[in-house]
Structures are given as C-alpha cells and as structure tokens.
C-alpha cells in the first residue's frame, strides 16, 4: 500500500464524516437557534425547551402513529397549533409576571416546567398506556436514501432538516435585522415599561414572541425524532436531554444572543463529532470516552469556561424597575421576634410529636422513612447554602452527594477504615472538588454557572462513575456498614436515626452561623451588586470558593449517611442528575432562605409522594413532579419559599388583628423626609386597602 492510497483513504473518510456530520449538526443548530430565539425574545434561559419539544413530538406521535391521522393534519395540530398555544399560555400565565426577576429565578421556573410539563401531558393523554415505540418523522418516506456525488448517503429526513434549519436562520435573521417588530421584540426584553412609553403594546409583543419561539421548539421536536437515536425508538422526554446539552454548547458560542453563531456552532459541532469518531484512535481510554457520551459535556464545559466571549452577565437593568413595589425582604434576619418565637414553638411541637411517634409507635418502615427525611434535609441544606446564601444555582449537588456516598463505601470496603471517617473524607474530597470547580465557573455566575455545573454532573454520571476508583465494582458498592464509634454502635435503626438527627442539628447551626455573620453578609452583598460589594472590600472569589465548598461538603455528608442508611450506594435511584433537578425545584419551592426550608423540603421529598399522594389521594406518583414543578413558578415572587411566605402572611394577619401597626414616622423636616409608608394624615402606615 503506498502512501498516496492511504492519504486518499483518509480524505475519503474525512469527506464522508463531513456529510454525516452536517445533518447531526443541523439538529444541534435547530435546537441552539430555538434556545437563542427564546433567550433573545424573552430573557429566559429556557431549559423547558426539551419539554416543549417533547409535547409537540408526542402530540404528533399520538395523532399520526396511534390514531392514524394523516401527516399534514397531525403536523398542523402538533406544531402550528399546540406549540404556539403552549407558548402563549406560558407567557400569559407565567413569564409575563416574572419579567423583573433575575435570570436565575427564570431559570428555576423553566426547570420546574421541565419537570412538570411532560408529566402533566402524559397524565392528560394517558401517554404511557403502552410503550411509545416507533416514532416517525414528519417527512413522507423520510428514510429514503440519496447519494451525494454518487457516494455519500443521506436520508430525505436529513436533507429536509438541513434545508429547514437554514431557511429558519435566514428568516429569523431578517426579522431581527430589518424589521420594526424585531426591534420591538428586543426592546420588550430589556424593559417592557420603557417600550410602552414608546407607544408599543408590550404585552402583545411578548405574547407574540413566545408563540414564535414555542413554534420553533415544536418544530425542532418533530424534526429531531428520525435523526436522533435516543428518540427514534422510544419517544420519551429524557430523549431530548443529550441533544439539548450539545445544542447548548453551540448556543454558548454566540453568547446565547447570536443566531448565526448558533447555526454555525451547531453545524460545526456535528461535523467535529463525526470527525472525531472517524479519526481519533480508540485505544486510549480517555480518547474512547471522548467519542462516546462524554463529548457533548466536555465540549459544553470547555466552551463555557474557555470561550472568551462568555463573561459574567451584567444584569441588564431595566431602568423602570423601580416602578414595581420591592420584593419581600429576603433574609431570614428580617423576621420579627414574634415570628421567630412562633416558629420555634411550632418546630418544638412538631419534633416532639415526631419523636414520640418514632420511638413509641413507628414500625420499621416509618423509622426508615423518617431517617430518610432527616438525611435528605441535610443534603438539602447544601442547596440552602448555595442558592439561599450564595444566590446561585448549581445543578451538581447530586454529584457531591454521590461523592460522599462513594467515599464512605470505598474507605470502608477497600481499606476497612471506619465508615464515619470515610464519610468525612468523602466530604473533604467533595469540598475540594467544589473549590476547584468553583474557580472557573463562579467567575461566570448566573445561568452559565448553572449550565456548567449541569455539564459537570452529567460528565460524572456518564463517565466518572464507571471507573472502579469512583463507583466501585459493577454492582455499585453493596454492603456499606453503619458506623460504630465512641463505643456506641449505631447499626440499629433507632440509633442511626439519632446519629442523623445530631448531624442535622450540627449542620443546621453551622448554616445559621455562616448566614448571620461576616461570610453571609459578604455573600448577600455580592448577590446584590458585585461591583459595589468589591468596592467596599468584599473578596469575591474567596466568598465564592467558601460557599461552593461548604455546600459540596454538606451534600457529601448527606450522601454518605444515605449510603449507610440504605447499606448500599443506590446510585441510579438516588443520584441521577435529573433527580438533582427535582431536588433543586423542591427546595426552591419550600424555601431556600432558611434552615427550616431545607428541612421541610427533606420531609416533603420523602413523605409527600408516599403519604399524601399515594395513600391519601390515591394519585399517581407523577403528580409530585407536576405539583412541585409548577410550584417553582412561585420562586420568582416569593424567593423566601412558599411556606415562609405563608407563615409571614398568617403572622401579619394575626398582628393586624391585635394591633394596628405603628408607622416609623420620620420627624417632620429631619432631612430626607417621608418614610416609605407614611403620609401626612393620621392613618399613616396603613396599607392601601385599609382606608375607610
């Protein structure tokens, strides 16, 4: 074989891979453009994209495959009708009301929708009555194969997808470049009120742009089915996840705002993927992984961390934000004394009751549930630290918990070291990983931080767990013992529960101390305004490393305890990254600002599906996703959590029944004048509705 023949073979392979890569890239590009479109037109980083795409695809599947509608009718309903109406509903009912909220709050809402929408859809159309096998595309005879230049095979589906994507890119570019409407859409994202002052009906514009972006999500949903292996066989919402992650990398190339960059990035990623499969040798373990599931996550992570265009987004402050009343005070420190006492009494009563029940009456099942609640409370306190104190969203708390669990297991099994020490070592490792991770990603903050941590979690899930020094043997570390130390044996159910409660109390106190003192103050300042915080001397990177590693350590302790309780590391059941999304949602709904919030979330996470949904209401367990997913919407309005909000309301009600609030009346003429609540008449401080 001569060198020239070899070279010709390589060239041939390269060209073949290029033509294989383009259609894959077109899929990435379509999703990336939808992301960019939604972000540009609404300011929402819409992780619920997968849910919207799934609903259109599943509607099409239901109508065309299961009910034998003709293709055109099914497409009309699924893409032209259902998708825009869904977009309209999302805008009207949800996103219009949270315009002023931070990007992070909107991200949480979209996470809630990602959890809730597909489940709701499935419950409504009874989608899972049989396995959704055999989804097909919307192009008639889509699998027909053509040969480009007589040799490179492409299917009709792939050609159609490519053409539609390029046409969409051109149309959207024209909309934003040249039309008045494009300008108005971009104006509304920045400030609906300013746009109104220019005589434009901002509500209409924003409804319209949501319908448009939702239409694109629906279109992507049906177009991707035949070209995506994870969707073609069984049509499930999770099938969109990998492609969404890859597409995020493409969207990130254009900082989420450039449509041409999203198109180009998508195509490029498609081509790079197939080229790597063709040319990179598989004999090296790491290189082999890179051709498999790891590639999209690594690319996403690398782009976010290294792409110079991606910087911390300065909250594009709406100049008329001040027109809305301020959100409720956030910190738990702003609670009144009465509130604190009230809370303490309630908590005491609750814990006494639970204690009596547990040690008096409970059977093994309930003791185990209660122990689980306590452990999840500990894990959720890590979210309280990160999201409540740090004001950021990290989607890799599951990973840290898993590190704790594996740490406990590895130390106990390999070296026969006390499992308690193993757990603490796991926590230390998690904290160190958190610290290392925090340096590149915390610089970015906001949605970038959330995506980067998600990429890390998925990377751990798909790659790292498989190594024996992480995840143990194939059957994921059975036989995790319970600890024995200080001469006490904690292996009985009751004793172990006591140990968990003790650790929960310790961690809770730790969280409160951090929140109330210098570190907590620095974090609150940073959350309010980074520039101003640094200008009074807050060392931003240090505060960030601290929250990230403290939070990771707490999660790992919880993970270790969970492994001890279950006596094995139930990785698939407990530590799947998609489970982690639900963790975040439930904590955010019940309260990220307080230790109680975390504990309530822990209890709700374990007990609610079991007790309330299943036993009392006899409902499908999937309703918990729907309920908590939609409840996440409340995060934007009540960042202190629904329960805290409810308590404040009831307490305020009680107070107003007993005494009318005394206004803080500024002495007339003393400098700046009126306190917000007071006016000249004697009814100063009264609420608007109070006036006779």
């Amino acid at each position, binding site marked *: 074989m001569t060198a020239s023949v070899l070279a010709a073979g390589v060239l041939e392979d390269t060209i073949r891979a290029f033509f294989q890569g383009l259609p894959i890239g077109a899929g990435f590009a379509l999703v990336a453009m939808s992301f960019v479109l939604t972000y540009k037109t609404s300011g929402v980083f819409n992780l619920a994209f997968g849910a919207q795409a799934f609903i259109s695809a599943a509607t099409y599947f239901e109508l065309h495959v299961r009910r034998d509608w003709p293709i055109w009718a099914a497409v009309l309903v699924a893409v032209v009708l259902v998708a825009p109406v869904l977009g309209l509903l999302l805008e009207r009912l949800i996103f219009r009301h949270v315009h002023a909220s931070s990007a992070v709050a909107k991200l949480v809402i979209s996470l809630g929708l990602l959890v809730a929408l597909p489940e709701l859809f499935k419950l409504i159309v009874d989608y899972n009555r049989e396995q959704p096998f055999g989804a097909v595309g919307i192009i008639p005879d889509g699998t027909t194969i053509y040969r480009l230049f007589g040799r490179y095979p492409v299917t009709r589906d792939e050609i159609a997808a490519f053409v539609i994507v390029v046409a969409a890119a051109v149309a959207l570019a024209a909309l934003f470049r040249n039309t008045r409407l494009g300008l108005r859409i971009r104006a509304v994202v920045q400030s609906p009120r300013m746009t109104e002052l220019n005589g434009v009906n901002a509500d209409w514009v924003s409804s319209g742009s949501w319908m448009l972006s939702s239409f694109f999500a629906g279109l992507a949903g049906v177009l991707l089915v035949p070209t995506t292996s994870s969707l073609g066989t069984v049509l499930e919402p999770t099938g969109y996840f990998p492609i969404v992650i890859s597409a995020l990398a493409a969207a990130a190339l254009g900082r989420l705002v450039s449509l041409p960059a999203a198109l180009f990035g998508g195509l490029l990623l498609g081509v790079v993927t197939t080229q790597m499969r063709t040319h990179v040798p598989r004999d090296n373990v790491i290189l082999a992984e890179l051709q498999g599931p790891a590639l999209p996550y690594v690319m996403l992570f690398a782009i976010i961390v290294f792409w110079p265009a991606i910087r911390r987004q300065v909250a594009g402050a709406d100049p008329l934000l*001040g027109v809305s*009343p*301020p*959100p409720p*005070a*956030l*910190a738990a420190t*702003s609670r009144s004394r009465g509130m604190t006492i009230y809370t303490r009494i309630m908590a005491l009563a609750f814990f006494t009751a639970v204690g009596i029940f547990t040690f008096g009456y409970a059977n093994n099942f309930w003791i185990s549930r209660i122990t689980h609640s306590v452990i999840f409370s500990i894990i959720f306190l890590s979210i309280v630290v990160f999201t409540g104190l740090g004001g950021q969203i990290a989607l890799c708390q599951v990973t840290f918990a898993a590190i704790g669990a594996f740490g406990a297991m590895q130390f106990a099994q390999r070296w026969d070291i006390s499992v308690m020490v193993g757990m603490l070592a796991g926590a230390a490792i998690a904290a160190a990983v958190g610290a290392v991770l925090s340096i590149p990603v915390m610089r970015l903050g906001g949605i970038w931080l959330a995506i980067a941590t998600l990429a890390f979690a998925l990377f751990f899930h798909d790659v790292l767990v498989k190594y024996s020094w992480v995840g143990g043997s194939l059957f994921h570390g059975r036989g995790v013992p319970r600890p024995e130390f200080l001469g006490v044996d904690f292996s009985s159910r009751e004793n172990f529960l006591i140990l968990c409660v003790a650790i929960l109390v310790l961690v809770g106190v*730790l969280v409160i*101390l*951090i929140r*109330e*003192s*210098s*570190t*907590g*103050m*620095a974090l*609150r*300042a940073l*959350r*309010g*305004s980074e*520039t*101003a*915080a*640094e*200008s*009074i*001397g*807050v*060392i*931003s990177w240090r505060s960030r490393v*601290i929250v990230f590693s*403290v939070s990771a350590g707490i999660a790992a302790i919880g993970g270790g305890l969970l492994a001890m309780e279950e006596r094995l590391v139930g990785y698939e059941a407990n530590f799947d990254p998609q489970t982690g999304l639900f963790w975040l949602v439930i904590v955010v709904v019940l309260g990220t600002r307080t230790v109680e919030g975390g504990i309530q979330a822990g209890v709700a996470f374990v007990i609610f599906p079991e007790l309330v949904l299943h036993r009392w209401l006899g409902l499908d367990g999937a309703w918990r996703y729907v309920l908590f997913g939609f409840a996440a919407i409340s995060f934007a309005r009540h960042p202190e959590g629904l329960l805290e909000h409810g308590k404040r309301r009831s307490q305020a009600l009680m107070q107003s029944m007993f005494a009318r609030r005394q206004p*803080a*009346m*500024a*002495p007339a003429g*003393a*400098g*700046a*004048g009126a*306190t*917000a609540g007071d006016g000249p008449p004697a009814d100063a401080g009264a609420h608007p509705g109070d006036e006779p």
Partner: protein
Amino acid sequence: MSLLAAEGITKRFAGITALDDVSIALEEGERVGLIGPNGAGKTTLFNCLLGLLRPEAGSVSFDGHDITRLPVYRRARLGIGRTFQRVELFSGSSVRDHLLFAHRIRSGTGALWKDVLGLGLPKPAEIESCDALLESLGLGGMGDEPIEALSLGQSRLVEVARALMTQPRVVLLDEPSSGLDRAETNALAETLARIQLEQGFGLLLVEHDVELVASFTERTYVLNFGRLITSGDTPEVMQDPEVRAAYLGDFVAGTQ
C-alpha cells in the same frame, strides 16, 4: 507625597480616548472638585482609581505605594471608598444592612472559623453606629426599609453612608447631590464636612451642581474630552474663560 495620586492615566474605548494623560493628586483631609462636560471622562477616571477599569497607560499610587495592579477589593481595603453615578446598591437588603455590611467587611477579618464559632455575629454597638450615621444624613428611621423602596435621592444618600462606613481615607463621590434639592444638598454638604473633620479623609467630588462645587471644594480639576484643561483654586477655575465656554455657560455662582 500625596495620599492618592494618578500619573498620566490614558484610557481608550473602541474608537474614543476617554482619558488622555490625566494626572491628579489628593491629600489627606483635602476637598477637591472634578468637573467637566458630559462624557469628559470623570466617571472613567474614578473607575481607574478604584480599579474597575484598567488604564492603558499611567499609574495610580496610594500613600506612596503603587496600586496600579491591585484588584478592586484590595484598594477598597486600603481605604478608598466611593459612590456610583448609577446607584449600585445591594438589592434585597435593608438600608441598615448596607452600612452593616460595609462596617463588617472593613473591620472584621471575616474568617470562616470565626463565623463558625459564632464570633462573627453583628454586635449592638455596630448597629447603633450605623443608625447614628443614617440619622445624621437625614435617613433616620429608614433603617429597616428595603432598599428598593427608596427614591433616587435617598438611594444616593445610602451610598454615601455606605462609603463612609468603610472608614475610608479617601472618598470619591460621583454626583452625590443629584436627586436632592438645594436644601438637602446643603444638609449633605454640612454632614460631609463634619464627618470629614472627625475622620480626616480626602474627598474628591464629581458634580454638575456647580453651586456645591464652588462652596464645598478648595481645589478643582477640569476635564474636557478626556484631557485636563485647568486645575487650581476653585474660585479661579470658575472664572477661567475656557471652563466657562466648555462647561459653565452663563452660570454665575450664587445666583441659583
């Protein structure tokens, strides 16, 4: 040796030179004005002094040390406090919290172990001193208001209070009086003067309220198109024909 000095600062943005070889100096206990037309580069100079922007050329020194390469928080900890022309407040915190944060971060070492042992909690004396400062700026009784409920002028006063709470040796004020009327401006000037007398910090004031600059500062620098056009005793600068043409128009001190 000046307390705060900038030497030959040049800063360019795409296409425009916002600062062109600007040098200024400020002594302990001095009150200096910095005026100039809109877009002259005053705020940009502040950003270069505090480190929010890195100049292309020039150096900044504080108390004899070169601080050109220090990050913002190090400069703040050395004792440079500032307010922002576009208010930068900690959304979600109360008015008092703003002062408390500033005081804590400046005084406490903020070590995590102290927090964990419960040594980092705010003390009643701290809270009192915050309230006292609020009172003297005319924000008495507003300590518990959420920061979003304040009008523009009140927000500016909170920024001033926050800067003063860091026990600064130099204070940079960027249009502190905008949103305040004459009487309130005078009250602010009086308070500033009093606190300055107690603490002895140097004060650099950017203002378009020429009345305030004329009555409050001893010395004034004038910037135009990024270049220093004059500097000197305030009354003389106010008479300078070039300054009048570029900036003051037919303003006459003491008539408004």
